[in-house]
């Protein structure tokens, strides 16, 4: 009769108390991932941040002052946004109808595989391919010339649109796959209910699907945007790297490997990260305006 009384006096052991809060031996499995991200993400990031405040000359903010006083540098933010935002929006607008169609298809796998190929090919291969295809001597221009539709080859690469097209091609599959998963996550009975209640196809999209998909679209936008914002190979290969497509990653590359100013390059990278973060936070914050619960009505 004494033992239980003694136990209740001392209370549960430390191990029990930790377990009640969700800490037990299994928690240790987090360690490898934690070490991994510490070494490969947190450390390089902190290193770069500190490095950016140790310029070659001038006080600790000199790199940032130089960036925001030189239009050749700060314009890269605008130029990158001018590529990344329209590309991301276009991909999303393309992906939605395709996802709605694919959702109903039986051969979904095949189509998905075809659409995913550009991801596996990599941006450089796609850029090289586009150079050959859309270049002044490419098939596209030669075909149009042969049929007499144009008298001079169109300039489709080494400008803004070359980069734009390559970003659409490499970004679309990713945007599409994310969108598809959100679209298929919505109970088809909801649309059927809408139809029996008299909603036309457009009304069903506008009043049922769209509100339920908005949070998913926000996430898709963020991930696709971040990918497009860090464009580098296609901006160099297909764009005008000294002019209209001098994106922010080119500025960082030049600082690091042409001026050998790693401190400045780190500052550019930090600014790049901050711009991405600002857009992502703004988009995610706007999710609060929409319904964010589960996308099926019943409790199950």
């Amino acid at each position, binding site marked *: 009769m004494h033992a239980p009384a003694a136990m209740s006096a001392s209370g549960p052991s430390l191990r029990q108390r930790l377990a009640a809060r969700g800490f037990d031996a299994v928690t240790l499995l987090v360690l490898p991932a934690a070490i991994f991200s510490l070494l490969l993400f947190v450390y390089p990031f902190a290193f770069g941040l500190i490095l950016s405040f140790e310029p070659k000359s001038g006080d600790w903010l000199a790199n940032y002052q130089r960036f925001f006083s030189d239009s050749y540098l700060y314009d890269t933010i605008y130029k990158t946004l001018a590529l990344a935002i329209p590309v991301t929006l276009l991909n999303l607008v393309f992906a939605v109808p395709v996802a709605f169609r694919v959702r109903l298809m039986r051969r979904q796998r095949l189509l998905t595989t075809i659409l995913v190929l550009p991801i596996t090919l990599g941006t450089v291969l796609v850029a090289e391919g586009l150079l050959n295809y859309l270049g002044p001597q490419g098939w596209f221009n030669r075909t149009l010339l042969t049929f007499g539709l144009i008298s001079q080859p169109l300039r489709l690469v080494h400008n803004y649109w070359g980069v734009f097209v390559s970003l659409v091609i490499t970004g679309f599959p990713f945007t599409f796959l994310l969108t598809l998963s959100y679209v298929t996550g919505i*109970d088809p*009975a*909801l649309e*059927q*209910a*809408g*139809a*029996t*209640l*008299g*909603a*036309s196809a457009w*009304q069903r999209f506008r*009043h*049922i699907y769209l*509100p*339920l998909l908005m949070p998913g679209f926000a996430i898709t936008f963020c991930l696709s945007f971040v990918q497009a914002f860090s464009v580098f190979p296609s901006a160099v290969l297909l764009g005008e790297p000294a002019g209209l497509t001098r994106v922010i990653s080119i500025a960082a590359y030049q600082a690091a490997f042409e001026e050998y100013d790693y401190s400045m390059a780190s500052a550019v990278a930090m600014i790049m990260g901050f711009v991405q973060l600002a857009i992502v936070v703004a988009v995610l914050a706007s999710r609060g305006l*929409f*319904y964010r*619960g*589960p*996308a*099926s*009505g*019943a*409790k199950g």
Partner: protein
Amino acid sequence: MAIALSQFNEVRLDRVSREFGSLNALRDVNLTIKRGEFIALLGPSGCGKSTTLNCIAGLLPVTGGSIWLDKNRVDTLKPEERGFGMVFQNYALFPHLNVRQNIGFGLKMRGTAKAEMERKVDEALSLVRLQGQGHKLPGQLSGGQQQRVAIARAIVIEPPLVLMDEPLSNLDAKLRLEMRAEIRRIHNELGATTIYVTHDQDEALSLADRIVVLRDGIVRQVGTPKELYEAPAHLDVADFMGFRNKLKGKVIATDKGRAIVDVEGAKIGGVMREPLSIGAAAYVAIRPDDLFVAESGENALAVIVDTAEYRGREFVGTAHTKGGLELVFRSSHAVEPGTAVQLRAGEENTLVFAEPI
């Protein structure tokens, strides 16, 4: 009551068929439903009852035949043009809209003026007894409340026809009985015309004015609950109506609509429900209530009792014959498992059917 359902005389299904690939989900379904009727489509899963409902709603195109609302052909219309109210099995409430918005959805799509919409939604809410819950999201409601919202949403658009697809199958037993009564009350109060899909014969018997029994996409029998319960036309219908004992045998005599069937040497007499000639294979169907533990061997089978469950007023037993036939019976007194007894079939409610196709 200001929710006034559209007036019409009848809905007619004329040789409606539906094929999925090579599979015939529905074959030549003919059915006429009069205004104000409560029709139950009853059958096991895969019998085509939900397919029928979806074809009427327009969610599945028919591959043959036609559907008529009086003189208007509706099977060529899109679901949104038919204006039938539908209650889905999982309710399909819009999770991002609150109760009022869910109920008002159909009115909004029709461009109903705001004041009128508010008034109708209020009436629908009071009809399903959900006053004061209007601001809640579906996720905050219990299963029974979600069910009520789904019903309110379907009837507030004042449809000529209300379609219900196993609406009670997601509820627990007690709530199911309660909502069953509610559905009938709402049907009566509105004077609605309802088509109700279910696999539960109790639901069909207690709710419907007429029951349509389907099997393998074919209408097997149409009739009032009383007709179906007392005089099922086929063995599979009888199976659904509680004839749990189906004993295979051979017809040895027929007389004025009655037949005597040889089941493992025992002679069992019953009412012939399908034309049978002497020597034909036949099934004797008996409800557990109509099998009595008896002394005499007349009209009876010799069996060994397997189990006997105490059910309060009576015992429910299972038994088997020498030939391995399984039987279910009821008894007012205890029977010991393992004992050999005679089970006598009641003369009135024993039915004889031909072999199923």
